[in-house]
């Protein structure tokens, strides 16, 4: 059977479609992440109440909820390949980089879906002031890209280890911290009427650096 020249792009697309179909059929991570995000949001809301004028606390709480939703779910993309013993098949049909990019895109979409539910609920329950939507959505998008890239590469690294859960949280935290710090700072600034350009630049640069580093790693991660 002939193969076409754009097989890398085809492999990325096939991995992304397979991830979406598998997640849709099993709800392996979606239910857990949504449940985690909503319960933690409800717990924060009941314990602290509405924080309309406290943009510093609001920004921190929003990204903590998103960070832990990511930690609770994004490692699954690789872990379930190991648990289902499907890594051999995956390695036979696609290059490591194509697999990683497909899974990274899936993790980003997954996080975006979590945010579609969580962020409006957060703004409503916490009585947050209306955000400046352009800046706010740009921060959410770039912050999510950073979370997705870091979670994907750490998920790939820890997938074949024992004690993956604790290892994932511990290993990914240093990589995720700059993303969360910049996103919190930017989110606070947009509520206070300040500029978010510096934070957006930092998030974009960090995402590019992290992506470049992770693409260099993927080829060496799945050697037996």
């Amino acid at each position, binding site marked *: *059977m*002939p*193969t076409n*020249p754009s*097989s890398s792009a085809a492999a990325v*697309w096939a991995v992304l*479609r397979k991830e979406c179909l598998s997640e849709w059929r099993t709800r392996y991570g979606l239910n857990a992440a949504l449940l985690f995000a909503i319960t933690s949001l409800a717990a924060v809301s009941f314990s602290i109440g509405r924080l309309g004028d406290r943009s510093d606390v609001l920004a921190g709480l929003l990204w903590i909820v998103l960070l832990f939703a990511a930690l609770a779910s994004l490692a699954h993309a690789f872990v379930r390949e190991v648990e289902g013993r499907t890594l051999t*098949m995956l*390695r*036979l049909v696609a290059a490591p980089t194509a697999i990683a990019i497909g899974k990274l895109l899936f993790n980003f979409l997954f996080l975006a879906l979590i945010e579609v539910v969580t962020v409006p609920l957060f703004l409503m329950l916490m009585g947050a002031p209306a955000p400046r939507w352009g800046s706010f959505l740009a921060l959410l998008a770039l912050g999510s890209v950073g979370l997705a890239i870091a979670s994907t590469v750490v998920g790939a690294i820890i997938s074949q280890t024992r004690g993956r859960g604790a290892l994932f949280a511990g290993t990914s935290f240093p990589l995720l911290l700059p993303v969360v710090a910049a996103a919190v700072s930017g989110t606070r600034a947009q509520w206070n009427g300040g500029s978010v350009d510096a934070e957006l630049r930092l998030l974009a640069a960090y995402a590019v650096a992290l992506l470049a580093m992770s693409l260099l790693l993927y080829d060496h991660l799945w050697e037996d």
Partner: protein
Amino acid sequence: MSATAAMVSPESVVLEAREVLHRYGPRVGLERVSFRAAAPGVVAIRGANGSGKSTLLRILAGLLRPTEGETALAVDGAETKRSDRSRWIGYAAPDLAFYSELTAAENLRFAAESRGMERPDEAVRQALERVHLESRGDDRVTALSSGMVQRLRLAFALLHRPPVLLMDEPGSFLDEEGRGAWVGLVQAQRRERLIVIATNEEREWTLADESVELRGRGLGRPA
């Protein structure tokens, strides 16, 4: 890509193992072995349980880096990159598992699309027909028996029509009809491809033109 698997003439494919040895920690999983096999034809890899038949197949498939020695797959006189080897090789082994939440056809379609094949649906249909699994293509993998999963492994290996087929215990879990179909398949493909079978089953290794005996006595000895 300069050439596709289907365009390669069988005479232009050579698979070679040079002084290959593999250790799992302190244990020797595969004693030193060398062989050279050219397509078309059938080669049997034989040896006691634990002598390293599956390990050798994983190394040949590019899934495992040997502790010592090297393997080579030459196509049209040029050695292929190890990372690119799966393009030229079809692999069916007990460690090959499928996505249980997807159907048999969806698993094969994912493989065909990932390999960048044109007309993936047609390739999937033909692969399922070759192993007589077309009537169960729309069943999820969890609904398939062990024998049907084994047929799916064979379909997976044949899907992209590679010039080299690596098969580890291919008759496992197959009933008489399945074994008959598999033997028929080998007979039909042996003039087109290089088929490497790791087996201790007499019915399987007697199909081979030549055999490679692994010297390991099983269970591995400490290095």
